């Protein structure tokens, strides 16, 4: 009787499932782990470390020489400015779209969902070309834009537009599953407690989606700073004017300015590392159980 009581309250440990003996499974395990490690090292580890190695193998002065090149400074500024415009824009749009798709039932809901995924499925070069065909000199709006003396292609607006296009999915895609998992119960509860839509968003919805949102923003930022193909098509790669950081890296590499190429690559990687580090810090500081 006493024994039964124990097992009911879970004091007795549950019976262990039978495990394969180590001699049987161990080598398979190690081979599989080994394959994964080699794969990661080859594709992720060595290339990433190599960038830093190449940039600093002749000391730190070539790196700093790169940093003060006017063309480099201009490329860096352009990249940062683009991200500063695109990231808030797509954060807003992403949240809005995810909220609409998760909480509202409307016609074209699934269509909107596939539309948001479009930039994932289209090659960035093709995306860039689409914009040239619309806003370029020979494009649909070419004459009209020229009449108003607005230059989109081979200029800053074009870079911002394609970057925005390419990075549309990230925030929406990261936030949507979180919203769907949370359901609408908490929002409805807040409503019954008298909260207006604005209060509900800031005090209930946003805190619930914050990690998904943060991750989406980081991905958006990384892509906005790193996008090459689409930007290469629309920017015209005019040195000192429409050359972004990734374009600068490629240009430097092609013209055998290898130290410059690696220096800029390091900075681009650092931008990514800083954002990930910022996320970690934020997560720790506001973490809760």
């Amino acid at each position, binding site marked *: 009787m006493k024994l039964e009581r124990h097992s009911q309250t879970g004091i007795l440990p549950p019976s262990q499932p039978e495990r394969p003996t180590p001699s049987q499974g161990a080598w398979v395990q190690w081979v599989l782990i080994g394959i994964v490690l080699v794969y990661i090292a080859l594709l992720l580890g060595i290339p990433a470390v190599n960038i830093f190695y190449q940039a600093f193998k002749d000391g730190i002065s070539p790196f700093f020489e790169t940093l003060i090149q006017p063309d480099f400074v201009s490329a860096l500024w352009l990249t940062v400015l683009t991200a500063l415009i695109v990231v808030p824009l797509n954060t807003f749009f992403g949240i809005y779209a995810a909220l609409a798709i998760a909480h509202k039932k409307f016609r074209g809901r699934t269509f909107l969902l596939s539309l948001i995924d479009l930039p994932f499925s289209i090659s960035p070069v093709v995306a860039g070309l689409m914009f040239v065909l619309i806003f370029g000199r020979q494009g649909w709006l070419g004459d009209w834009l020229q009449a108003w003396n607005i230059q989109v292609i081979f200029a800053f607006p074009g870079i911002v537009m394609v970057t925005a296009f390419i990075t549309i999915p990230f925030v929406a895609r990261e936030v949507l599953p979180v919203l769907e998992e949370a359901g609408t*119960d*908490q929002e*409805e*509860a*807040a*409503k*019954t*407690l*008298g*909260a*207006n839509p604005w*209060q509900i968003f800031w*005090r*209930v919805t946003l*805190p*619930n989606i914050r990690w998904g949102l943060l991750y989406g923003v980081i991905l958006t930022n990384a892509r906005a700073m790193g996008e090459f193909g689409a930007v290469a098509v629309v920017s015209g790669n005019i040195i000192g004017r429409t050359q972004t950081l990734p374009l600068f890296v490629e240009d430097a590499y092609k013209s055998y300015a290898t130290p410059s190429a690696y220096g800029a690559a390091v900075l681009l990687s650092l931008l990514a590392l800083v954002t990930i580090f910022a996320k970690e810090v934020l997560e720790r500081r506001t973490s*809760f*159980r």
Partner: protein
Amino acid sequence: MGITIEGVSKRFGDFQALYSTSLTIETGSLVALLGPSGSGKSTLLRLIAGLELPDTGRIWLTGRDATYASVQERNIGFVFQHYALFKHMTVRQNIAFGLEIRKASRAEIRARVDELLELVQLSGFGDRYPSQLSGGQRQRVALARALAVEPQVLLLDEPFGALDAKVRKELRAWLRRLHDEVQVTTVFVTHDQEEAMEVADQIVVMNQGRIEQVGSPAEIYDHPATPFVMSFVGQVNVLHPESVLSCQLPGIQGSQQVFFRPHDVVIETDPCSGGMAAQVQTVLHLGREIQAELLLQDGGSLWVHLSREQYAKTPIQRGQWVYVRPKAIKAFPPADKHRAVRNSSVFV
């Protein structure tokens, strides 16, 4: 007056969730909306809350027409089946939410939250997060949060549905006591007839988007208005007209189905007792009572529940032939029950 519902109906796409329904719930009462899933009970509750808007009809809350009032304006407390606590807030912050929205002072909020934590017996748990609480504790926090804003009406949607049987039983008794203490008009939805009988003053039995009957637990059980109510509230045996004719029950016409509770029977072994002959199929000893399944001569089967005393008098066995006499039977007029209910206003 607490809540008045006048000819309210609701349709979701092709599904008529609620047909035109009228109901009056008096101030301070504790009412259960009881029915199977899809009976419209949750829809009715959400309509009262304003979480859904009715297609037709009007809803009055404490004498005020609230048909088109927003959820925020209705001053209701709502408790969800899955608690719907704010996961990123502590218990205190959860309970304080409605008060903060109403811009109460800090001191006022602290005092009120303390008072509510005590009421729901969670005084030491204020700084925990919902994920650190058990299901029963979470539901009590949800209740405290709903009560914090001093609602005119407290609405609970299957409040104990996600809890295990033991906690559910405790919380029922606790809700009953709480209501006696707080005296707020309370409506709760449940599909569990035992829960409804145990907690509520009045039960509204619903089926397929319509109200079947309104009454006290005793009225619902002893005087069910429809076959549905009879079979949904408590167990029931149904006799087909053929079996009825063959044993000549008093006062019943041949074409009517006859209902009786499994415990309202006399079992005898004497063939001359005038009961229906049946063979014992199964005998279950459940401690407090003995349940047996009997097979009638026409192929129908019955369940009977015997007290220990009854069983001691006639200890039936599997395979034995016995004679069954229902003590209290009920037959329902074959009229269209739906039309009868639809056009009547029901008062609780």
